[in-house]
C-alpha cells in the first residue's frame, strides 16, 4: 500500500526490515511490548525468527549464532534484559565472530509494563556500545550501523529503543543495496570464548580497550549530528526526545546523539562551549546529564518531576522554562478488563470467594487485580508468583498460609515458572502449596504469540510441545489436575477447595484456549493434523 521506496513503517517494522536487508541469519527473542512486532515482522519478511522460552535463552542462542560467524538479532522488552543480563555481561568479554545486536525496547511511562527502568544503564554496566534511534528511518539505519559496529569491534551492540519509537509510524527510505554476509563457519578460539578466570582477565582488558577505541571513533561518527540554530540555547538529546525538542525549541542549536555509549565527550564539550545555556533533554534516568557532568562539562538537567513518565512536546517546553508547577492531569480513560467470556473470570471469582492470598504474575490475568475481582495480592516480575507464594507459605501463620495460591499463565510458566516449580518440590512449605496455571494456549497479553507449550513455532508451524501436566508430574507432584472452568459449574471451586485442604503440593491447570483466537487456533490445529503425516513430526 506504500509507494515504492517510501514506506510508512513502525520502528519495530523498520528494525525487522533492516535486519532482513542486512542478511541477519537468526532472530531470537521473547514477546514483550513494545518489542514483539520486530520478530513477527522479520518472520513475515522471510527471516528465520524464533521465540525462545525466555530472554536469557534467546540471547544465548543468538550468542551461539554470532560465535558461528553469523549476523544475529535478539529482541526483548526492557525487563527482558534483566533476565538476559547474565549472558550479556560475559558476552561483552567474549565478543563475537559475526554480529550480535540486542534490541532492548524500553517503556518509559509504562504503557504496558511493571516498571520504567532505563536500560541505557546496562550499556555502561556491561560495557557494550549502545545506539538509540529517534524515528523509523533511524531505526532502519541504526540497525545497519549496529551490525557494522558489532562486526568491526567484534562485540555485542545494545540497540535501545522506546515505546514511541517502536510503535510510531514514520516514513522510511530503505537502502537500495542489500547485504550478502559471509556464510557462518566455526573458528576455534578457546582463550577468547571460554571464560575461566585465566582467560577472562585478559578478556576484560580487551573489552576496555575496545570501548576506548569506540569512544574515539564516536567523536567523529555520523550517528551523532548537530542541528544548527541560535547560540543562546543549546540542547543535548537522544532518542524520541530529539523529536519533541525540535518542535518545542525550533530555534535551539541541538546536539543529537545516536551513539550513546561510550559517549563522545570531546564533541559534547565543544558543543557546550559554543552555546550560552546548555540543557540536556532525556527521558527517564539522568543518564546523559550525569555522565556529562562527571566529565566536568557544565550542563543543566531536568527537574526530578520529569523523570517520571514519557516526555512530550509540552513537557520539554516546561523543562526548558524551568517550570516546576504541577502538570495538568489527563482525564482517566476506560481501563482494560478481562474479556467477558474469559476463563480467568471463573478462577478469580473462586479465589475471591475463598479470600485466598494470591501471588500473581505477568499477563492478561494480572487484570484480575482490578474490579470486580481485586483478587491478586502481588505482581513482581515474570515467574515470581511461584517464589513469592512459597515465601508467604513458609512464614505466615497456618490459617493464613493455607490460603496462599500462586497464579501464573502458560507462557509465563514456561518463561520462568518452571524453576519456581522445582523450588516448590525441593523446599515444600509445611502445609503444601497450590499453583494454578491459567493455560489459554497462547501468549495473549502481547498479542497471541506461540510458546513452547503450544507446540507451534513463531510462524505457527508444528514443532515439539512441552506438556505442562507431564512436566509437573515428572517432578514428583502427585496432585496435578487439568480442568476446563465452566460458567455455572462449581467444579473448579470444589477442586480448589480440595487442593487447599489437602496440605499437599498441588498444580491445577485451568485450560481453555483464549476466546480471542479461537478461530486461528482451529486453523493451526487443522494444519497440524495434515502435518502428522510426516513421521518426523508424529510423536
Amino acid at each position, binding site marked *: *500500500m*506504500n*509507494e515504492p521506496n*517510501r514506506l*510508512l513503517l513502525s520502528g519495530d517494522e523498520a528494525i525487522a526490515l533492516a535486519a532482513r536487508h542486512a542478511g541477519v541469519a537468526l532472530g531470537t527473542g521473547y514477546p514483550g*511490548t*513494545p518489542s514483539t512486532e520486530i520478530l513477527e515482522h522479520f518472520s513475515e519478511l522471510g527471516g528465520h525468527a524464533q521465540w525462545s522460552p525466555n530472554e536469557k535463552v534467546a540471547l544465548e542462542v543468538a550468542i551461539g549464532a554470532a560465535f558461528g560467524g553469523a549476523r544475529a538479532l535478539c529482541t526483548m522488552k526492557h525487563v527482558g534484559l534483566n533476565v538476559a543480563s547474565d549472558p550479556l555481561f560475559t558476552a561483552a568479554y567474549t565478543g563475537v565472530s559475526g554480529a550480535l545486536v540486542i534490541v532492548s525496547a524500553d517503556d518509559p511511562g509504562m*504503557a*504496558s509494563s511493571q516498571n520504567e527502568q532505563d536500560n541505557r544503564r546496562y550499556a555502561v554496566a556491561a560495557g557494550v556500545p549502545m545506539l538509540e534511534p529517534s*524515528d523509523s528511518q533511524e531505526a532502519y539505519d541504526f540497525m545497519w550501523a549496529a551490525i557494522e559496529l558489532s562486526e568491526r569491534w567484534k562485540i555485542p551492540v545494545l540497540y535501545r529503543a522506546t*515505546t*514511541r519509537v517502536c*510503535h*510510531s*509510524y*514514520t*516514513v522510511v527510505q530503505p537502502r537500495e543495496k542489500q547485504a550478502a554476509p559471509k556464510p557462518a563457519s566455526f573458528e576455534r578460539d578457546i582463550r577468547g570464548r571460554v571464560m575461566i578466570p585465566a582467560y577472562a582477565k585478559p578478556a576484560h582488558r580487551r573489552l576496555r580497550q575496545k570501548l576506548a577505541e569506540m569512544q574515539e571513533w564516536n567523536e567523529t561518527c555520523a550517528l551523532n549530528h548537530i542541528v544548527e540554530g541560535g547560540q543562546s540555547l543549546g540542547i543535548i538529546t537522544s532518542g*524520541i526526545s530529539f*523529536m*519533541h525538542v*525540535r*518542535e518545542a525549541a*525550533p530555534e535551539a542549536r541541538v546536539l543529537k546523539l545516536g551513539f550513546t555509549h561510550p559517549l563522545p565527550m570531546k564533541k559534547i564539550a565543544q558543543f557546550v562551549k559554543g552555546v550560552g545555556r546548555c540543557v540536556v533533554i532525556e527521558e527517564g534516568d539522568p543518564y546523559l546529564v550525569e555522565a556529562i557532568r562527571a566529565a566536568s562539562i557544565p550542563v543543566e538537567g531536568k527537574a526530578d518531576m520529569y523523570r517520571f513518565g514519557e516526555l*512530550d*512536546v*509540552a513537557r520539554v517546553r516546561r523543562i526548558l522554562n524551568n517550570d516546576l508547577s504541577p502538570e*495538568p492531569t*489527563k*482525564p*482517566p*480513560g*476506560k*481501563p*482494560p*478488563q*478481562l*474479556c467477558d467470556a474469559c476463563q480467568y473470570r471463573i478462577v478469580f471469582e473462586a479465589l475471591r470467594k475463598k479470600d485466598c492470598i494470591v501471588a500473581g504474575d505477568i499477563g*492478561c490475568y494480572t*487484570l484480575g487485580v482490578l474490579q470486580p475481582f481485586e483478587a491478586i495480592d502481588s505482581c513482581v516480575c515474570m515467574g515470581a508468583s511461584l517464589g513469592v507464594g512459597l515465601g508467604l507459605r513458609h512464614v505466615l501463620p497456618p490459617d493464613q498460609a493455607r490460603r496462599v495460591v500462586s497464579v501464573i499463565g502458560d507462557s509465563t510458566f514456561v518463561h520462568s515458572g518452571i524453576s519456581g516449580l522445582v523450588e516448590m518440590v525441593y523446599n515444600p512449605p509445611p502445609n503444601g502449596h497450590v499453583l494454578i496455571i491459567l493455560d489459554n494456549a497462547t501468549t495473549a497479553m502481547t*498479542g497471541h504469540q506461540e510458546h513452547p507449550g503450544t507446540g507451534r513455532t513463531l510462524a505457527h508451524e508444528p514443532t515439539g510441545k512441552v506438556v505442562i501436566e507431564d512436566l509437573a508430574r515428572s517432578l514428583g507432584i502427585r496432585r496435578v489436575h487439568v480442568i476446563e472452568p465452566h460458567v455455572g459449574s462449581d467444579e473448579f471451586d470444589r477442586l480448589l477447595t480440595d487442593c487447599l485442604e489437602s496440605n499437599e503440593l498441588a498444580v491445577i491447570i485451568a485450560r481453555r484456549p483464549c476466546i*480471542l483466537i479461537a478461530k486461528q487456533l482451529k486453523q493451526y490445529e487443522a494444519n497440524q493434523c495434515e502435518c502428522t503425516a510426516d513421521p518426523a513430526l508424529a510423536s
Partner: protein
Amino acid sequence: MSKVTNIVVAGLGGQGVLKGTDILADVALRAGYDVKKSEIKGMSQRGGSVTGDVRFGKRVHSPMVPAGEADFLLVLEPTQVEPHRYMLRPGGTLITPEAVQASQLPNKKALNVALLGALSAHLPMPEEQWLDSLRSGFAESFFDGNHQAFLIGRAGQKRVK
C-alpha cells in the same frame, strides 16, 4: 514553521481506532506529506481506551499530538468524548458518532470508516486517494461496504473547503 495538521482518533478496544489511523496515515503518505502516526495499543484488545495520533505536513517532528493542539478529534464511542476533549485546540473540530446516522451504515463495524468519511470533507486529500487507501487497507470483500460508509460520512459534513 509550516503548518502540521494534527488528528486524534479515540475509542475503545475493538472499534477499529488503529485501523482508522492506518488509513488516515496512508492517505497522507499517498498525498506526498511527511506523516507520523503514534499509538498506544498494549491494552487495546481488552476493551480499554485506545487512541491514535496522526500528524502530517511538510515536516513533522514529534509523533505525538500535543494536548490542546489537535485540529480534529474523531471519537468512535460517546463515552470517550469527554476524556479526550482536552486534546482539541480551541476552535478545533470534534467528530463523534452523531456525525452519521447509524441506521444508514451497511454494518456497525464500518463506523470508523464513516467517521473518516466525515473527516475527509475537512482535509485537502482528494476522494480518490481515500478510496485507494480503503481498497488496499482492507480485504477486498469489505470494500463496497466501506465505500458506502465513507460516502455517508463524507456527505454528512458541510463542505468547508
